[in-house]
């Protein structure tokens, strides 16, 4: 598991240079097994920003957590005890974040989350050294609920896997959605056949379907839904419509509305440059996860320009200021160090042979999360 790709950023050309690595970052992410695609995207986005910054005082150590919480905890111990890193980042999954983040921040390390945003870390369990650069887990679902109101939907059937992130998702949707619920279902985690659920959707009399089924579950659901002949409008969070998996869903995803805080057509200079350089560097379109990795690295680099990591208070303030050009456009941290940002509604389209998304509306503007009030720090 101890995949070591210690990367000395950019100007390694200066052999024997005096400059010692001033900030050492430990990245724990998923690089092998089923969920590897997400970790690889976060890593590639992060390293692209590091490379572009060309700083010789930034060192990144990358290790593979195999999507196992105990391995992630062990890696965090290793990075803190042996590598003596200053900042940790990289974790994709909420359950792994819950295992690593509280202990790491309690030991005085900074943690920048490029993907997971479990609700306890935004509310009662918030910590001054924890910064979430992606979203609080409920955010995209809340935007979907708001969009459903705007679109005049009155009666939704909602479903998600039976685990905490699934419950957060449906809670988020219900928080914003003003209509009735035609049905609410929790499916088995990792389930691949949805015939029984689709039959219930058909019989429920709903006017729309909201689903949160990340990864392979979403691919299966979308294909089976398209084949079933049920033609109610589908709404989902970006996770089931990401660049990495859209190609595997194919036509079944065309026209589906989904919510995301980022898309490749957001009109700002930073984003245009990001999309172009990412494609040039890796030969594929960047995904949501890649954009989050890229933003995370740029946030860190912006703070490095303003404060010394050894001075924790100053560095924390520099992170909190978030003075970097986010590829999402406007970006700020709330009091609980979670993003305040716009969340968009996207539609799946086909550009040539490639399935991708385009923004059609703004779901929520300058949206913060629902747990900020519970955070005391």
């Amino acid at each position, binding site marked *: 598991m101890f995949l070591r790709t210690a990367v000395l950023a950019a100007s390694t050309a200066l052999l024997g240079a005096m400059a010692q690595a001033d900030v050492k970052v430990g990245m724990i992410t998923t690089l*092998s097994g089923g969920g590897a695609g997400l970790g690889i995207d976060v890593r590639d986005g992060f390293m692209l920003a590091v490379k572009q910054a060309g700083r010789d005082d930034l060192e990144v150590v990358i290790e593979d957590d195999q999507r196992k919480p105990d391995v992630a905890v062990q890696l965090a111990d290793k990075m803190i005890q042996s590598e003596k890193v200053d900042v940790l980042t990289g974790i994709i999954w909420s359950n792994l974040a819950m295992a690593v983040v509280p202990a790491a921040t309690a030991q005085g390390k900074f943690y920048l989350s490029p993907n997971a945003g479990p609700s306890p870390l935004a509310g009662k369990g918030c910590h001054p050294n924890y910064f979430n650069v992606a979203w609080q887990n409920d955010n995209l679902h809340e935007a979907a609920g708001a969009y459903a109101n705007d679109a005049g939907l009155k009666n939704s059937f909602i479903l998600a896997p*039976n685990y905490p992130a699934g419950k957060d998702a449906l809670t988020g949707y219900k928080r914003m959605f003003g209509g009735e619920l035609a049905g609410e279902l*929790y499916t088995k985690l990792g389930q691949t056949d949805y015939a029984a659920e689709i*039959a219930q959707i058909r019989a429920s009399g709903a006017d729309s379907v909201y689903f949160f089924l990340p990864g*392979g579950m979403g691919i*299966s659901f979308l294909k*089976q839904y398209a*084949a079933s002949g049920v033609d109610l409008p589908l709404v989902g969070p970006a996770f089931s419509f990401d660049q*990495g998996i859209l190609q595997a869903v194919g036509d*079944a995803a065309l026209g589906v509305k989904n919510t995301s805080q980022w898309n490749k057509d957001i009109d700002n200079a930073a984003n245009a440059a990001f999309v172009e350089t990412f494609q040039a560097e890796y030969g594929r379109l960047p995904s949501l996860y890649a954009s989050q990795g890229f933003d995370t690295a740029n946030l860190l680099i912006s703070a490095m320009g303003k404060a010394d990591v050894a001075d924790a208070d100053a560095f924390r303030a520099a992170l909190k200021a978030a003075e970097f050009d986010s590829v999402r456009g406007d970006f700020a941290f709330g009091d609980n160090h979670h993003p305040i940002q716009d969340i968009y509604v996207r539609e799946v389209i086909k550009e040539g042979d490639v399935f991708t998304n385009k923004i059609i509306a703004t779901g929520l503007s300058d949206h913060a999360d629902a747990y900020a009030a519970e955070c005391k720090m």
Partner: protein
Amino acid sequence: MTTLLFIEQLLNGLQFGVMLFLMSAGLTLVFGVMGLINLAHGSLYMIGAFAAAAVAAATGSFLLALMASLAAAALAGALIELTIIRRLYDRDHLDQVLATFALILIFSEGTRWLFGSFPLFLDVPAALSGPVTLPGGIQYPAYRLTIILVGLAVAVGMFALINRTRVGIRIRAGEADREMIAALGVDIAKLYTFVFALGAALAGFAGALVGAIQSVQVGMGEPVLILAFVVIVIGGIGSIKGAFVGALLVGLTDTLGRFLLPQMFALILEPSAAVSVGSALASMLIYILMAGVLIFRPRGLYGVA
């Protein structure tokens, strides 16, 4: 809940059962004839799906993709039988479990190395992509009906192969008394390679067929493997008939459990708690079924003592 919905769910359960039968037929065949626990069965399922996705992407033909899945999985099966599996026949189950577990690791990461970390695209053929209307007004996906028919055809084919052909006679004889049929001049090594390749081909075929409505990705074989084991254990390991009955039983139990349990709990609990408790119980239901069957019939429904 209407009668129509209930009938549709019964159909879904049947369809899921047939799907499970396709996945488990090869596994039970290999166990019955060679006494081998093959955890890598799920990997062969994955190989079939990946081969089909690759060929479908290159040629655009679903039929060619299905043939590729059969060929690729049979080839992979024959290859590992000749190099590795045949050394395991006279080992205990523990060695078999570990060796085939090692094969899972090799196949999974090998596939990821070849095809990358992202899921592949494999779609149902256009002719079968929509729903058809059944008598009574039930709309049902044409592809799923096809799966039911194909699964039933495979079941009939397997029965015919085992009960009506010369190879089948040898397979049954091999199950009963390995030394005797070797003494009678049957090349037992070749027979075993054939049976293992056949089992592998069935797994790969199922992978391609089911992969078209699910997600073709690394690791797709593992949940299937566990389900297939549940099926063949309920049916009685080694019995094709048992696998068929077991598959239908598991398919119906799982589908109806997912559908009915939350509604039943809604009668006694408040809605959100009912959904939560019902779903939790539904996800445990097939294992409860399996444990229940084994407690009363320790060798499964059709297992031989």
